């Protein structure tokens, strides 16, 4: 057996554990220290072959154009919107970094749910929002332009809680 095999295996194990740990730590840090914003969303329910069922979210309100940074403004109801795109990092206003280079692609695009709950959530969204003015929104934490979703709500109640009832 090659004498480098065991150290190389150890190094591989460390790298394989470091990558997900880094992914978790960076998101956990944003959840702990980031500023909270609420974005109105229109959800639909598709499927990811690896990660399961999710609800698609769209927060950009058909905002297209060049620029990797979306400038955030909060309206009088407390909901955030992306009002402009810029190619350089904004200094004095809250912003969101695009998940793609060069043009703006919203980093908020999916909310994973239980296999059984996602279609039910979809039905609920349409039912609740069709005849009424009920607010469907996603709560996110943002730190230095990076974002982590903390929950999906209808009129202030978490979607999981509504579905459990």
């Amino acid at each position: 057996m090659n004498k480098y095999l065991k150290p190389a295996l150890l190094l591989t194990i460390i790298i394989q554990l470091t990558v997900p740990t880094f992914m978790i730590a960076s998101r956990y840090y944003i959840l702990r220290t980031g500023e909270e914003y609420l974005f109105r969303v229109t959800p639909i329910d598709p499927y990811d072959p690896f990660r399961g069922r999710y609800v698609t979210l769209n927060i950009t309100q058909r905002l297209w154009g060049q620029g990797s940074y979306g400038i955030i403004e909060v309206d009088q109801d407390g909901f955030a919107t992306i009002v402009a795109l810029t190619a350089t990092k904004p200094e004095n206003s809250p912003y969101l970094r695009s998940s793609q280079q060069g043009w703006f692609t919203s980093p908020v695009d999916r909310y994973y749910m239980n296999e059984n709950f996602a279609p039910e959530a979809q039905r609920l969204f349409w039912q609740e929002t069709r005849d009424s003015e009920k607010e469907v929104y996603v709560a996110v934490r943002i730190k230095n332009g990076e974002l982590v979703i903390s929950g999906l709500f209808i009129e202030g109640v978490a979607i999981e809680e509504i579905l459990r009832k």
Partner: protein
Amino acid sequence: MRKEDWLLQEIDNWQGEGIINAETATLLQQRYNRARSFSSITVIFAIIGALLIGSGVILIMARNWDNFALPLRISLAYLPLLAAQALAVYTVRHHFASLAWREASGILLTAGVFTVIAMVGQIFHLSADLGRYLLICGLLSLPGIYLLDAATPLAVYFGAVISWASMSYESVNVLLLLFFLTLGFIYSFRQQGSGGTRLSYIAWSSVLAGLALVPLLSSTLRCSIEAMLLCFLALLLAGSEIKAYLRVSCQGVATLGGFITLAVLSYENSWQYGYDLNSWQSPVGTVIIALLAVAALFLTVKRLPLKSLTTLQVACYLLLATLSYIWSSMPYLERSGAWLLAAVANLALLTIGVGYLVSGVRGLFLRQTNIGMAYICLLIFMRFFDSELDFLWRGIVFLLLGTTFLLINLRLVRLRKETLLEDNL
């Protein structure tokens, strides 16, 4: 070392020392080889069982996933990877000689990596970038292929990086893919031996990955797909003699792929209305085509006899590749003489077909004879229903072909008579 392996080694020693004779040694080897293969099946079944139990646990956990607190979900996400890593360490320490253990650990380690990254993405609702996900997982799984000397994760790795490149569709990424794929190809060329299912499996994975790469490279780098494909197929043919286990996959893919490509090029319209890359043929793509062609030429000159059927095929592929490249560089409106190029492609098909037929009949190789017959029959079928050709021209071509065949047949009959006469004398 397992006890069966030790015993088999000992039987060799006993025979060498004259304690037992060859017959007894063979009997004992058969007996304990059977025991060894039985224990491998046991291992495979045990791993399939463990995978099924693991999947069952994951499904039950998934049912209650939403009820778990975030730290618990994060901890559970690591479990499949940690279990697979523990198994990999155990395999390296205690069962490295066993192919079944190495392959099973390798695929479990790959699955563990894919699972943990997917679960982290799911826990934190990370945005959709399937390509990047596949790339990260592919690269994290890559060392397992080398460390555990396992072939199955290689196929997964090839699939992951090619999918990433096809999704990202940027020339820089595709060039990076070329680099990443090379890391996998190095593994396949490191393998020793003259046969076996495992080596054949590695060869097929590598050849098919290379084939999938050609349309990606040519479309992203903007260069002639026909030229790149034919050069790649020529390289496969020329390289099929490097290692015995490469022969079937390389020759199979190169022969079938070459036939399909030449068949497409045998139509005048495919030349006439092909891509005009005059203003945007990429230099990088051109370099890659040139490298493939030079490598194919080098290997052919170095390893193949001048008058062999493979040399004839390589020459036909490279000739058509050169013509395709030049033609695609010509401005669309300045193109004339597409019929001539189509005629060259037809001639190339006919030459290869006749080459197979003659080689098969001479050497009494049924497979080659059948390939030659298939080539010629399909060529006749395509030209008979080719609406681009006038009836008169089709008639003349068929008359010429028929005459050629009768002449070849006459020559073969004479050769056979001469051989029989020589044998009788």
